[in-house]
């Protein structure tokens, strides 16, 4: 029987948790969660082997709704908590859900150091260009000149390019997608999870309530259309002349390489020192695919 995408998602939601969720109508968080769950389903990963770790923010509320080992931590520190889990249990698939403020402002140090260590975490940054939860203050990804409740005259600060940051800090897999491009997002999440090493995915999302309103984007639908019209796949961009890609955001797999992964290297050290196989095993990805969800 063909799997209906919604049905796939329902397999992963927590029955004991009372809905409705906390997110506003039109928010990108739910769409991205759906993409992620379909990716996990396609990879056939056991729920028990997934730890989903988040910081603080609207996006970071995601773990509570899903039936994994879930940890909602403090603002900015999800990656550091996740590092402890991964190093203790390398066989687990550790997925970090974090906002742009959570990951790149208060938690920026942990982001670059996870990338530098190339520790096998899948870090999904839901980038809505603003602090959603606290009511629309500017973030390190608020573009120059855009408005926020603490940038009432337009932001005077240039924004981070999170992919550039991740790549130069040492992550072995770096990608960007959007809430609009759901199939692409699912495929990228699958690759990011499978990747042995630090994967950082910058997912452009919409916060119609704060960022959208303050910057006259119109409805959530308009914001999704903006994502469609202002981004170019990396393959297409490489063939276009510079004037055609000016002002556009490049999406797709920006960087993908293989290099030593931290927990594996540590286990090699243990084996070397003790002559025994380390207590930890490799990440378990059960590749038995039971169906395809698109």
């Amino acid at each position, binding site marked *: 029987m063909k799997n209906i995408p919604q049905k796939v998602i329902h397999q992963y939601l927590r029955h004991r948790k009372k809905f409705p969720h906390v997110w506003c109508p039109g928010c990108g968080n739910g769409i991205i969660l759906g993409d992620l769950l379909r990716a996990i389903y396609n990879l056939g990963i056991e729920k028990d082997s997934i730890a989903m770790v988040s910081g603080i923010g609207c996006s970071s509320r995601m773990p509570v709704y899903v039936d994994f080992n879930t940890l909602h931590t403090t603002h*900015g520190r999800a990656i550091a908590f996740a590092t402890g889990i991964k190093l203790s249990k390398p066989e687990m698939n550790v997925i970090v859900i974090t906002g742009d403020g959570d990951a790149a402002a208060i938690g920026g140090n942990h982001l670059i150091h996870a990338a530098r260590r190339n520790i096998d975490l899948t870090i999904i940054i839901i980038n809505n260009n603003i602090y959603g939860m606290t009511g629309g203050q500017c973030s390190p990804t608020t573009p120059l000149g855009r408005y926020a409740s603490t940038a009432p005259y337009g932001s005077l600060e240039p924004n981070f390019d999170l992919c550039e940051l991740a790549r130069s800090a040492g992550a072995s897999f770096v990608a960007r997608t959007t809430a609009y491009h759901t199939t692409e997002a699912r495929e990228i999440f699958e690759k990011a999870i499978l990747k042995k090493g630090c994967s950082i995915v910058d997912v452009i999302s919409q916060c119609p309530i704060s960022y959208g309103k303050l910057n006259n984007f119109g409805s959530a639908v308009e914001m999704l259309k903006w994502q469609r019209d202002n981004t170019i796949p990396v393959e297409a961009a490489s063939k276009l002349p510079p004037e055609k890609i000016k002002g556009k955001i490049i999406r797709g797999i920006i960087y993908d390489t293989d290099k030593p992964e931290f927990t594996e290297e540590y286990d090699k050290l243990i084996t070397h020192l003790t002559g025994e196989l380390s207590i930890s095993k490799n990440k378990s990805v059960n590749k038995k695919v039971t169906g395809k969800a698109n």
Partner: protein
Amino acid sequence: MSKNRGTKPKPVLMQGNAAVAFGALDAGMRFFGGYPITPSTEIAEILSAELPKYGGKFIQMEDELASMACILGASIAGMKSMTATSGPGFSLMQENLGYGMIAEIPCVVVNVQRGGPSTGLPTSPSQGDIMQARWGTHGDHPVIALYPDSVLECYELTIRAFNLAEKYRTPVILLMDEVLAHMRESVILPPKEKLKILNRIKPNVPPEWYKHYKNEPKYISPLASFGEGYRFHITGLAHDENGFPTQVPQEVEAMMDRLLKKITDNLDDIIQIEAFEMDDAEIAIFAAGVVARSAKEAIIKAREKGIKVGLIRPLTIWPFPDLDVEMMLENTKAVIVAEMNQGQLINEIKRVTKYGHHSKFIKLQKYSGLIITPDEILNKIAEVK
């Protein structure tokens, strides 16, 4: 020191920081995350070499915020974990220390104190963090903090810190004096088979029935590790017994009461306090850590002159041993509170001792970066009329 010390215990010359590191290993600690800071750094250095030999993990994190966070993550994944730091780093750990308390995650945080505030006196002793250990993280919360006074006790209390952390599902703080951390003493460590090591209780119910913040048994629910099939949620938000966020006043109150009661209902088990020459003492000295060592020497000298003086030394500094101190001070005419700060313990003594009580409160406070000497204590004893 070798992994196996044999059945015949032999004396070894050991530094306080090393005793902490080896105590932790003997307690079953297998994850250390930390950031270098004097005077605690030896603990990290020793463990970076030893842990992988035990199949454990060591990681030098990017800062103390991350250090505290990663040991909590490791503990949730099933490892006994710890970090070690000093004042400035301890300040950075406070938010996540509170997370460990509300989320009820066992771990041990060692704070080898140095002079503060700020960078202060990096290599000098101070007892300035006694109140930070109690109230450093925001919000209402009970705290367990232990305070050793010898190298052997560094070893013993480190093991005890892990036992209490596992038993009561909470971070436990080990407060140390710089002098002790760097002092070498000859110690005979107990044979490993004599050690009492506690491990957290694991659930034995099917996952559907598991509530990891249940009120029972005795306010402490068993704790499963991530990856064991229980798939539960942990948050720093106020939560119900399933770990899901709640703002229902009754549920919030129940959570707060449980966090408090799991400690206050077990004070007999948690509190350790030493009384030295207190039986007939007319003057009591209240001191912790290395100050208590100076006090003991002063007491021996004073007793030679016939002065009836004794020492009260808390090994558990938080929760404060209210009842024990009150009882021990009952028949004394004065209490000298000796501490290397501007007065943190003296207020506790005043709090637990009823005003109008015949005890006189005498303070001996030193915050110059030097320890309190036996002579200084003798001089104070002489002042008591």
